[in-house]
């Protein structure tokens, strides 16, 4: 995230992502699956990690919709391990990602200890099996915008669609 730190902040003053961050957003949006990992800061994900996804969802609220995802976190103590289920999982549920059941948390004492590799393998297997399936939501192309048929907008409001002649102007006679 540190490569994008400044551009993430600028998204909140500009309203649009600058070049490097826009490329990162494209990579995320086009990925078949995501592995997201954050250090634990103050009993939650880091602020920068959260800001990345805030900025992403402001740019494209469906960027993560239907996306297979593995969540992971590192921390100085095992007492923070529920951060995965109490902080990351609700965040990504809200953003409509499909988060695999096994999260990977690594405290200092887990590195090299037994158990971590097995959890990694299980989580990776779950992610791989999800990524092998057809996408649950098809993503519209970012190269062009999808039209919203106007008759439909009018009809939803109970207004009868007409077919106006527009700027050529029609005078009541």
């Amino acid at each position, binding site marked *: 995230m540190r490569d994008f730190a400044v551009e993430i902040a600028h998204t909140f003053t500009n309203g649009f992502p600058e070049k490097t961050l826009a490329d990162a957003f494209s990579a995320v949006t086009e990925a078949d699956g995501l592995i997201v990992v954050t250090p634990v800061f103050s009993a939650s994900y880091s602020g920068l990690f959260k800001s990345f996804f805030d900025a992403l969802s402001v740019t494209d609220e469906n960027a993560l919709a239907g996306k297979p995802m593995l969540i992971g976190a590192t921390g100085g103590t095992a007492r923070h391990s529920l951060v995965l289920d109490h902080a990351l999982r609700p965040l990504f549920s809200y953003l409509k990602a499909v988060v695999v059941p096994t999260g990977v948390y690594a405290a200092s004492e887990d590195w090299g200890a037994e158990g971590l590799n097995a959890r990694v393998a299980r989580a990776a297997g779950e992610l791989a099996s999800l990524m092998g399936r057809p996408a649950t939501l098809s993503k519209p192309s970012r190269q062009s915008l999808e039209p919203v048929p*106007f008759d439909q907008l009018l009809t939803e409001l109970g207004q009868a669609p007409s077919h106006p002649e527009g700027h050529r102007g029609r005078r009541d006679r």
Partner: protein
Amino acid sequence: MPEKHVAPSTQFGIFTVGDVTPDPTTGRTPTERERINAMVTIAIKAEEVGLDVFATGEHHNPPFVPSSPATLLGYVAARTERLILSTSTTLITTNDPVKIAEDFALLQHLANGRVDLMMGRGNTGPVYPWFGKDIREGISIAVENYALLHRLWRENVVSWEGKFRTPLQGFTSTPRPLDGIPPFVWHGSIRSPEIAEQAAYYGDGFFHNNIFWPADHTKRMIELYRNRYAHYGHGTPEQAIVGLGGQVFMRRNSQDAVREFRPYFDVAPVYGHGSSLEDFTEQTPLTVGSPQQVIEKTLAFREYAGDYQRQLFLMDHAGLPLKTVLEQLDLLGEEVVPVLREEFAKNRPANVPDAPTHASLLALAEAEYTREEVTTG
């Protein structure tokens, strides 16, 4: 018969937000009266330097002053001869469409037809409830209100029922539009495809403010509008009516422009405290430099927008002093716009329509009327 008119194929003008912002170089904040008077002075100056359009924003919260655009434009109308008076934008969500129909038809009569307007939704959540509305229904309100406004200007007697306002029975909005020609309408939106669709559906103009976002985003919105304009049978995509914003600060010497504008940029209410001036000018249409640089950057807009009908510049914001803004308008009118007019006219296909005016719309309606008389005879 309408008078013969020589209207520009692309109109050039300015649009103002009407913000009251402290000048960061002096710390001084103009009074509301000073700012309002400055807006009038700027509008009159726009006509003097040969620009075609003055458009004002509409805001109902401090630090903005133009809450009543029809009042401001009526006053400017009395003090100008040629300038087209417009809005940027008129809030189609929180205003009653009946009142918009009345205000702008009256303004049309007073200004001898020099009136058009741009519809916008407004993006300030707290403003909606002040007018009994809810921002979450913004798009639906915009669609319904404009459908009513469109009829009020075209049908002498309207009976109507909708979700967001009381029904009308046999209602006539007065005065009727000048010569029976409704003011031309632009629809402004930065990122809502529904609004590009609305503009296309009615065959109205689409305006992209083109200030805050990179060009590829603006391009996608305009492409959508142009394609849907053709879809609804108003003409080819190239014949759709497109307007763009832009934002410039000029001095003869580009380093002087950068040095002078930077303190205003750095703390500007809309994008300050973020990207550097250099990054922002590289990634958005903002140009800070010499008149030649402004010409080059503006000419490039056509590469992603196609041949278009209206170019407005934001010149008077972020606390820039009136004197500076007037100097900017001199440069814009004397050095930039004449070159842009010449270059925009080059290689412009004959089937691309000129910017609509009251006179051109009247001529079209007369021609259509005559044709119908002949056929129905």
